[in-house]
């Protein structure tokens, strides 16, 4: 059985070697068909030729398999980045079967057919591998982009010596709030600031999880030796927090960012000319 398989394999190997130009040309054609010009023919040819050669090498030498897998991963990664679907990418690999089959048909011999069955199984494995590495590559791209977005949308600014603020705008989800929390706390250390203002004027709504994250940020800041003030809580959000039964405890809240700043300045002993005492209280009543 093993001997038989070996003979069939050799046969296919010879077939692949002798008809490289023909098979490769057909393969390129087949795998480009569904893409309708999205891939450049020359690029595809170069990619597939490399894979073709690596495939032949892997048949001679089992160590060649890792090189082949590497090339398939590269193919998956580049196609994922160009926006191809995983099936389109896997089909590119399966296309080799079809291309070879046409030559096996011409050969017509029993050895060729048996060899083809073996080859077919091998290519199926490679196709699946491509599918998997494609999915992995795309997940990586998505997480990278999400992280970049999170980074961009959370500016922590220094308002004054010893006071930093993070103005939050837009919908807060749990992941983003967590990023904000970490960045804010790190900024406290980096700038030696004892006060942090979290301004949520631009946040339309908060859910339980987000409120919990805010609360945890305040508690973590305290453990580090800093104080947080939350400003800009809309009546709606205040209502949510109360209804959800979240204990905001003795956390300092102010109506506006300006009120929060003047509170922090007063607490840290800074005297500011023209600062009207009582303003915070008035604003808080308006809100």
């Amino acid at each position, binding site marked *: 059985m093993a001997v038989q398989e070996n003979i069939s394999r050799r046969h296919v190997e010879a077939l692949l070697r002798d008809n490289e130009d023909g098979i490769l040309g057909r393969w390129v054609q087949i795998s480009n068909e569904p893409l309708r010009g999205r891939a450049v023919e020359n690029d595809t040819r170069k990619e597939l030729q490399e894979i073709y050669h690596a495939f032949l090498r892997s048949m001679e030498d089992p160590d060649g398999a890792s090189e082949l897998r590497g090339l398939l991963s590269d193919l998956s990664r580049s196609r994922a980045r160009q926006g191809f679907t995983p099936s389109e990418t896997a089909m590119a690999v399966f296309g080799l079967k079809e291309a070879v089959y046409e030559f096996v048909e011409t050969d017509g011999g029993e050895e060729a057919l048996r060899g083809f069955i073996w080859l077919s199984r091998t290519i199926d494995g490679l196709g699946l591998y491509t599918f998997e590495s494609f999915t992995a590559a795309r997940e990586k791209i998505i997480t990278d982009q999400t992280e970049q977005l999170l980074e961009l949308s959370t500016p922590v600014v220094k308002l004054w010596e010893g006071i930093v603020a993070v103005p939050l705008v837009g919908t807060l989800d749990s992941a983003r709030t967590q990023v904000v929390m970490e960045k804010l706390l790190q900024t406290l250390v980096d700038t030696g600031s004892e006060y942090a203002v979290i301004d949520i004027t631009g946040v339309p709504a908060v859910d339980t999880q987000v409120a919990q994250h805010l609360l945890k940020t305040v508690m973590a800041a305290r*453990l580090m030796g800093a104080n947080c003030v939350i400003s800009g809580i809309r009546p709606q959000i205040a209502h949510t927090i109360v209804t959800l039964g979240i204990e905001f405890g003795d956390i300092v809240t102010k109506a506006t960012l300006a009120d929060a700043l003047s509170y922090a300045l007063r607490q840290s002993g800074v005297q500011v000319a023209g600062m009207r005492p009582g303003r915070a209280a008035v604003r808080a009543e308006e809100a």
Partner: protein
Amino acid sequence: MDRVPILKIGDVLIVSIQGDLDDQSVLTLQEDLADRVVATGAIGVIIDITAVEIVDSFVGRMLSTIAGMSRMLDAETIVVGMRPAVAITLVELGLSLGGLRTALDLEKGVALLSRHGTQGTSDLSAVGL
């Protein structure tokens, strides 16, 4: 087992924890500190944990215990330099360390002590223990 050195500067004892302490070393430090507060009549203890990579419930409890003990001996404890990752983890673990005073760094911790040291400890009696 490492013994953590305790420095005395003026009326204040300063401990800087370096590296990963096993539980026995943590307990030893706790006892050593109590002894030194009594022996020196220090008014403050500063525990610098800038170099500490994790605070679990055991170390957390040690910090609270030291704060409680020194308070009874009329000294105030301030924990300084807790890293953000450590603080976030502690909150998630559920340890609030209520009653513990904290500061961002050693300098701010010393400033906090001198601010409160002369005013007595009226506002501290309210915080736990």
